[in-house]
């Protein structure tokens, strides 16, 4: 008579669950470094060439499906563009697009707020691999001097920081990612707080702003650059969209919309800056 199968199956499941919990615990303890971070970096390094080749080969298919799914919105956009085109009487659309791209790159060449901080220009080549993370991949990596933690900006201001690096690619965690935080300072009142990502399309939440601070809707927030901060001071971050003072609370309830466009990123600048080197 055959032995019942299920106890062994349950044992296997239990073993796998224990293994999973152990991995999660070890990963949590090792933080951003350790063997798991190295394994992730190696995995990206291995898959980079394959990914780049397949991505360029399959891009038209993805575009086709996107076009089919977003047909109505694209049709509306198309109509609007046709009207604009007619009014402008422009026939050099491709040239204009190339010029716009060049302007984007040029606009990031001399960002006033960067001062003398060295930086590397990068092109966004891919969006993040998970629905639970707001990340993008850029075509510069450790070979270009990029390391984990460096701030990433566009002409609009801060967009995030480097969270993983392989030789020729880096992953940037965006400002609206729920695990992202940055110290901010109101340019008018000087009030400081911490901006936290709230997911794609949602305004960031600014915490630790005490009641009594003269913070107003429409104020601009820049990086605070306080000691132990991971970002240099003075980079534009966002604009305050609402300030609420709940009765009895010690801190204001502040929301802020990022200044930079986090959805249509094409070119970015990685600042070769760290809190230690300055």
């Amino acid at each position: 008579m055959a032995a019942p199968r299920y106890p062994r199956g349950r044992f296997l499941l239990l073993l796998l669950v224990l293994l999973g919990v152990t991995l999660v615990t070890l990963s949590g303890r090792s933080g951003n470094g350790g063997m798991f971070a190295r394994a992730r970096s190696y995995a990206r390094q291995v898959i980079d060439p394959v990914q780049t080749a397949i991505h360029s080969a399959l891009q038209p298919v993805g575009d086709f499906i996107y076009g089919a799914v977003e047909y109505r919105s694209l049709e509306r956009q198309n109509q609007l563009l046709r009207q604009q085109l007619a009014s402008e009487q422009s026939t050099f659309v491709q040239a204009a697009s190339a010029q716009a791209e060049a302007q984007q790159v040029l606009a990031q060449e001399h960002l006033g707020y960067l001062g003398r901080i060295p930086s590397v220009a990068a092109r966004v080549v891919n969006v993040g691999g998970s629905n639970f993370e707001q990340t993008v991949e850029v075509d510069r990596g450790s070979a270009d001097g990029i390391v984990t933690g460096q701030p990433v900006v566009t002409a609009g201001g801060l967009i995030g920081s480097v969270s993983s690096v392989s030789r020729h690619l880096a992953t940037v965690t965006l400002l609206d990612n729920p695990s992202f935080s940055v110290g901010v300072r109101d340019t008018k009142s000087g009030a400081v707080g911490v901006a936290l990502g709230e997911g794609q399309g949602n305004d960031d939440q600014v915490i630790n702003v005490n009641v009594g601070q003269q913070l107003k809707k429409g104020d601009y927030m820049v990086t605070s650059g306080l000691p132990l901060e991971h970002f240099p001071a003075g980079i534009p971050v966002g604009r305050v969209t609402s300030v609420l003072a709940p009765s009895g609370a010690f801190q204001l309830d502040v929301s802020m919309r990022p200044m930079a466009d986090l959805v249509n990123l094409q070119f970015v600048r990685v600042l070769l800056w760290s809190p230690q080197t300055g």
Partner: protein
Amino acid sequence: MSSPGARRLVKVAALLVVGIVVQTTFGNDLRVHEVAPDFMVLLAVTGGFCGGPDAGAVIGFGAGLLADLFLLGTPFGLSALALCLVGFAVGWTTSNFMHPRLVLAPLAAATGTMFGVFVFVAIGYVLGQAQLVAPGKRWLLVLAVVEAAYAALFAVPATWLMSLALRGPRVPVSAMGEVPGVGPGEAAGRRHAMPAPRARRRRRARVKVR
């Protein structure tokens, strides 16, 4: 390496690698409401659907480990843990309550994927990953529904590929119990996955009908 088990392992591993490559390249461009399909959850679900609870748990764990290599915001092992449970649950449900017909694959894929999203978020939240629920319940629901729709869409090819990968040594279908709509590989997987007494009862019943 020449044993059927080792061959099956290599084929499933190859399928998982193909899955992660497709996920990190093609998958990310297929966004509806900013939600991309999750092929690794789909492979865990099809693993359970074709191979039963044991195979589902192992395939889910492997798929999760590969997915974890390409995630940054969650601890390593979280996807492995979640997908292992998903694979086991789908395999257990399939073995006990339904025949793994190919036409049922979209339904199983959609339900399993939706379950997978909630399991991932729930375990993550329990383990302190509060950012997973930060965007709100509505977004989570949209995410689960869109991922489930994608899973249903890709379920048939994924199930077919998984059944090929799990295909064992050639055994006459009649000798192991008919599994309509799927290949003999799935039948082989089910033969191992199904509790022996239940399988024997079904076989006896079939003989009586004949």
